[in-house]
């Protein structure tokens, strides 16, 4: 493989990794505060992409439609917490997990019933999909835009977590919910903020996905969601930075494996889970992860 193709694949990997990273942040943050693997999270990404699609269908510009998708997904995320998870705060964690799977099925089937299972073509504006070239490398602009926006978003999330009182409360909550309440802080409100941030980021990931693979369907969040979950575990569940690192590693690996060994292309989805198994076997806390009963984020 020559250098140009390698570079091209590297950039593609960064773009794919960005999507995993954005979705993985939500997994990791929700896990941090609730010790819940929110299996409905991949479907929130689907909701974001669908709302954007319908926003554009009804005549909104792409930017406004994307905003609608992001805000809509954040609201759906907050509602799942409010309706499904909050009543189970004191219940065993397994009840919470089963509920999350239930929410996942609910969202997938709701969107299938409402909008049909047939994939819909997603038409991103030309300034995003336009192909440009540097030397021999031909790339759509989106593969540059996506990782750039992802890194900016990561910086914003880290700023919120480390420099604002709400971010500090999120980190404190990951350590000790009862003591957070003793500070006069409404823990449910902090958890709501976590669902809001996580869901908004998942929606952005979903929109990026729709731009890159220009079609969407109600089950699009299943496999991407699972891979983002693998990325979160790889990076160290509970760590936002870890989730981003895990996402990029997964993105690069997936693209490069296919580029280097085209005959393995059919197995590309298996790599994420192969990674997941390796991490669970040899370093269950992941790259950035810490002992689960100590601090996270």
């Amino acid at each position, binding site marked *: 493989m020559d250098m140009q193709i390698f570079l091209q694949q590297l950039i593609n990997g960064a773009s794919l990794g960005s999507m995993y990273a954005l979705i993985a942040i939500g997994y990791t943050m929700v896990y941090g505060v609730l010790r819940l693997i929110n299996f409905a999270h991949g479907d929130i990404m689907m909701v974001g992409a669908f709302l954007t699609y319908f926003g554009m269908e009804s005549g909104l510009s792409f930017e406004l439609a994307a905003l609608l998708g992001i805000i809509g997904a954040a609201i759906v995320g907050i509602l799942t917490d409010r309706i499904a998870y909050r009543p189970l705060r004191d219940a065993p964690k397994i009840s919470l997990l089963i509920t999350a799977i239930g929410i996942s099925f609910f969202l997938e089937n709701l969107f299938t019933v409402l909008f049909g299972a047939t994939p819909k073509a997603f038409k991103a504006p030309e300034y995003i999909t336009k192909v440009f070239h540097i030397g021999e490398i031909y790339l759509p602009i989106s593969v540059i835009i996506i990782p750039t926006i992802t890194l900016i978003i990561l910086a914003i999330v880290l700023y919120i977590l480390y420099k604002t009182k709400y971010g500090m409360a999120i980190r404190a909550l990951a350590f000790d919910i009862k003591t957070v309440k003793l500070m*006069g802080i409404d823990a449910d409100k902090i958890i709501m903020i976590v669902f809001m941030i996580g869901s908004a980021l998942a929606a952005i990931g979903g929109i990026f996905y729709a731009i890159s693979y220009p079609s969407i369907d109600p089950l699009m969040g299943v496999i991407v969601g699972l891979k983002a979950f693998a990325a979160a575990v790889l990076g160290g569940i509970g760590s936002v930075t870890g989730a981003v690192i895990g996402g990029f590693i997964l993105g690069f690996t997936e693209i490069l494996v296919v580029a280097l060994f085209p005959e393995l292309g059919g197995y590309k989805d298996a790599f994420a889970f192969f990674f997941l198994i390796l991490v669970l076997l040899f370093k269950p806390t992941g790259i950035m992860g810490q002992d689960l009963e100590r601090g996270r984020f």
Partner: protein
Amino acid sequence: MLKVKNLVVKYGVINAVRGIDLEVKKGEIVTLIGANGAGKTSTLNAIVNLVKKSGYVEFNGVDISKTKTHQIVQMGLSLVPEGRRIFINLTVEENLRMGAFNNDDKFEELKEQMYNRFPRLKDKRNQLGGTLSGGEQQMLAIARALMGTPKMLMLDEPSLGLAPKIIGEVFDIIIELSKTIPILLVEQNAFAALKIADYGYVLENGQITLQDKASNLLGNDEVRAKYLGG
């Protein structure tokens, strides 16, 4: 200031607290003493609704029996929990910031007050809470609670696991605080607690078996035999 009536806490089939009454008046230090497992911590947690309970609790003339924990704290009843519960993954200053979560305007001013009162916290302001010694963590836990400008403070075993010299410092701080706000002090170290308190309750198996002026309890034969080592 604080009135508790017929407080009951059950964990499954176990009755941790079996219907106790207690009262803390303005200007008082009241102590609740008793052996391990007598129900002291459960009582404090139940007052702020951190655990399920039944019974009546009144703070500052308001019924707070069903009020949520964070709202009780916002009303001015603060609890320094057992084991200090410092956020070990946050810095000292961030811990103080959490204490002042609803006190944004006064944060800087209160912070300086705390650093003056606890100079060692100032030296370690940017260190993680988990790196502090037990005594420093207790100071931080008290300072963090004070950042919310409470109207009354409850302290759960502030002397637990501390060196005798540090215990003395902590009790000095409690005496100092009691000049401005009433204090409900839970202690296993009954002697030290009764010496600084105005009034005391003895808790046994979730029931109050004895209550009197602290000075009288110090002289009481039964209390001496059970809690003061003869």
